[in-house]
């Protein structure tokens, strides 16, 4: 049985880490553990099974000032609780953190805010509002030496010192353990409408989405769903369409949404027959896109591929995938395979001719251990990343191997 620790505050956590650092004992940092299936499994690496450090005890809201558009929370705070609190004041986390539970646990499990920031993934609104790290204004954390440090602050406009908190966003807990995270929040949209175009092929869909993205109508979601995946939708207009769906989201003040929907209809009318989703259906649909919920749940292997939007359709064509979704106007491709087979990752990566990042999201454990889960980096960049890791965690005790080779001790 592995040891498990549950520190309740920064001091206990720092003491634990100091000890582990001195003993070179590896630790696995987890919140509620809903995203342990994402990234690489932690490596045993001859130093014993990493002891689990459960950070869900370091939880709670430090402060929330709606009129300042800022909230500061402890990492173990459930993401749903944060979302709920913000919703009560008509605000939101604008980067749309995913409910990874659907892909990784087979059911809704939002996990903790610390987990959401540590995997750093952004939803459909990434194209307009920015990425998870754009909303992290500051943090307190403990490094691999057991030292407490902070970076950033609570204001949006701040260039004092390096943004270590942004670097730690998406670092899968391999650089430090958060003890407080300060986030920028935004007003929730008054209205959320969606314009649907029926029956487009992927290349044509990218053209339509590009036209919308390049218009001044401030769209905040640009997705394309092929017919079989669209049929899984619980939104009747999508689920019963029996055709591929290209979707453009328009959010904001009521009068503005109405105006922009009218203008966008004129713009994309030449592409195909149109339909509209209003608030409830819109929100339901975009959460299905956000969480890749529309992919068949029994497809064993799932990839998330971030590429320049013009490269998206080619990735789908070359991937040989059994199911797929397109988001970010072609810049984000989810690929599903019924079962694992040799060469799937290689095929995807070979098609990424203009750079990008293919992340293996779901696969049987054997595949997760063998396949390059994160995009392989050029040698210089990989070595630099390993030195960065060593600068935070010189004994390599945090989540060893969780982000692949760069996060293993001695890689620098």
């Amino acid at each position: 049985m592995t040891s498990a620790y549950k520190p309740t505050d920064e001091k206990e956590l720092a003491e634990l880490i100091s000890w582990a650092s001195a003993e070179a004992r590896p630790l696995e940092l987890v919140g509620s553990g809903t995203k342990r299936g994402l990234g690489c499994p932690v490596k045993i690496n001859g130093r014993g099974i990493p002891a689990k450090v459960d950070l869900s005890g370091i939880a709670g809201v430090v402060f929330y000032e709606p009129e300042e558009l800022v909230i500061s929370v402890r990492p173990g705070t459930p993401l749903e609780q944060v979302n709920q609190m913000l919703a009560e004041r008509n605000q939101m986390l604008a980067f749309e953190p995913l409910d990874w539970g659907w892909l990784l646990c087979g059911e809704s499990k939002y996990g903790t805010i610390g987990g959401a920031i540590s995997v750093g993934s952004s939803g459909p609104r990434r194209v307009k509002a920015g990425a998870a790290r754009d909303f992290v204004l500051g943090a307190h954390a403990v490094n691999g030496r057991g030292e407490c440090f902070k970076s950033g602050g609570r204001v949006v406009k701040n260039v004092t010192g390096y943004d270590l908190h942004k670097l730690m966003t998406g670092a899968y807990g391999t650089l430090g353990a958060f003890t407080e995270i300060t986030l920028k929040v935004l007003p929730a949209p008054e209205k959320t409408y969606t314009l649907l175009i029926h029956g487009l092929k992927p290349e044509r869909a990218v053209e339509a989405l590009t036209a919308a993205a390049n218009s001044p109508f401030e769209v905040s979601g640009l997705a394309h769903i092929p017919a079989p995946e669209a049929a899984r939708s619980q939104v009747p207009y999508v689920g019963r369409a029996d055709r591929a769906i290209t979707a453009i989201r328009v959010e904001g003040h009521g009068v503005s949404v109405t105006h922009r929907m009218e203008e966008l209809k004129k713009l994309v009318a030449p592409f195909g027959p149109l339909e509209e989703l209003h608030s409830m259906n819109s929100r339901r649909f975009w959460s299905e896109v956000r969480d890749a919920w529309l992919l068949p749940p029994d497809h064993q292997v799932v990839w998330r591929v971030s590429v320049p939007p013009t490269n998206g359709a080619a990735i789908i064509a070359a991937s040989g995938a059994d199911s797929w979704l397109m988001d970010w106007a072609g810049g984000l491709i989810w690929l599903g395979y019924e079962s694992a087979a040799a060469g799937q990752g290689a095929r995807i990566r070979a098609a990424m001719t203009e750079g990008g990042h293919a992340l293996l999201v779901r696969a049987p454990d054997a595949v997760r251990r063998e396949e390059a889960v994160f995009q392989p980096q050029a040698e210089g960049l990989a070595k630099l990343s390993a030195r960065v890791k060593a600068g935070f965690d010189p004994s390599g005790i945090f989540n060893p191997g969780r982000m692949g080779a760069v996060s293993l001790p001695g890689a620098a």
Partner: protein
Amino acid sequence: MNVIAPEPITADLSALAARFRQVLPPECVVTDTIARKPFETDAQTMHRQMPGIVVLPETVAQVSEVLRLCREFGVPVVPRGAGTGLSGGATPVPGGVLLAMTKFNRILDVDYANRVVVAQPGVTNLGITRAVEDDGFYYAPDPSSQIACTIGGNVAQNSGGVHCLKYGLTVNNILGVELVTMDGEVLRVGGKHLDPEGYDLLSIITGSEGLLGVITEVTVRILPKPETVRALLVSFDSIEAGGACVADVIASGIIPAGMEMMDRITIDAVEEYCAPGYPADAAAILICELDGPAAEVDYLIERVTAIATRNGAIGVRASQSEEERLLFWLGRKSAFPAAAKMKPDYYVLDGTIPRNKLAPVLARIGELSRASGLTIANVFHVGDGNLHPLILYDANVPGEMEAAEHLGHDILRLCVSVGGVLTGEHGVGTEKRDLMPEMFTDLDMQQQQRLKCAFDPGQHLNPGKVFPTLHRCAELGAMHVHKGKTAFPELPRF
């Protein structure tokens, strides 16, 4: 300002210059005293240093060679764009090399389908917008020096502008860079895609103030130009009323493109300078700019007008034409030159505070100003709490420059004490270096310096900037642990 450098420079600069001339065209290596003179300062002109050698490379391979040679000779290197920075980030190190990137002035790729522009670092901020505006696009961050400042400098400083509230800083608007490290290696970080691969190094390279590497290419996001832009000019009989109005606008779910405020002293100065027609009876004026689809802008103009009236505005004017909007902005954009007319010199500060601390902080700034005998004009990006107090002084009066610096530092300490920060967009450089401990503990700064060590273990790049204490990387990397003597010989159980 005391100069801090990792080691006394003992290298033979003429030998280094000779080696530079083997890899660079002769005109790109400047050793002549008069020709080096223009590089002795950036726009933070209080402190000047002559660089030992100025190099102006033309290719990435040359940048790489220059850095390799500097490392071989043990000579520090200061990278520089247009030199418009306000915190002394590009102040040369005496006897060091100044690496000017101004010859990298080409736009490499305009890619509308992916909504990005790839530019060399010496392209000006405005140059990017100029390249795409005829096709209906623009680059959002707009520092007031945008006509001259370079995109490479913007990345190094994580530059802001008046539209950060809605559109963010540089870090929020770029997707990739090419970077040459101190050992001459060329790295590509990011690209035209949105998710980072591996650690998000772009987020720390942006704003690294030339301490991590030399940027040789930048990929920026471009946005479609908004359909409409309109501004409101609102006047108040107190700063407090203005501040309350701003808080109410944001609390009601409106994020304007920009919100700028200025105080009475500044209003008088700009009226005298360029007569924008600001109300004569106002203690403060607010410019609130709204952009987006026409229907939205018109609707929000009405809502903000109502909020302003409710907060006791003594005058509200909405721009009815582009000319009128630009007239509203004329005074704001002239604030710095107008201040320069009041006194021979001014020192501009850059602290950010939580918006709700605005009234007490400005009151305290007024007290500090009166106590020091130096006049302060206040202009600020009120939407995001970024203050730019202008301390007016005369460098020819003995002691006045030092008094201005002293007052400035007191104001920045005040910003930090209310939960704010030392610098919102100008950077730390040399100017705020010694104030870093106001905001950060030794451990905070050491963690930042370890990042520096990962990029530049010999600390040749821009030494003496940002961090008040230099630590050798070996010292920062050491693990001070003694097996068996830690606080927890037994397994701790929490």
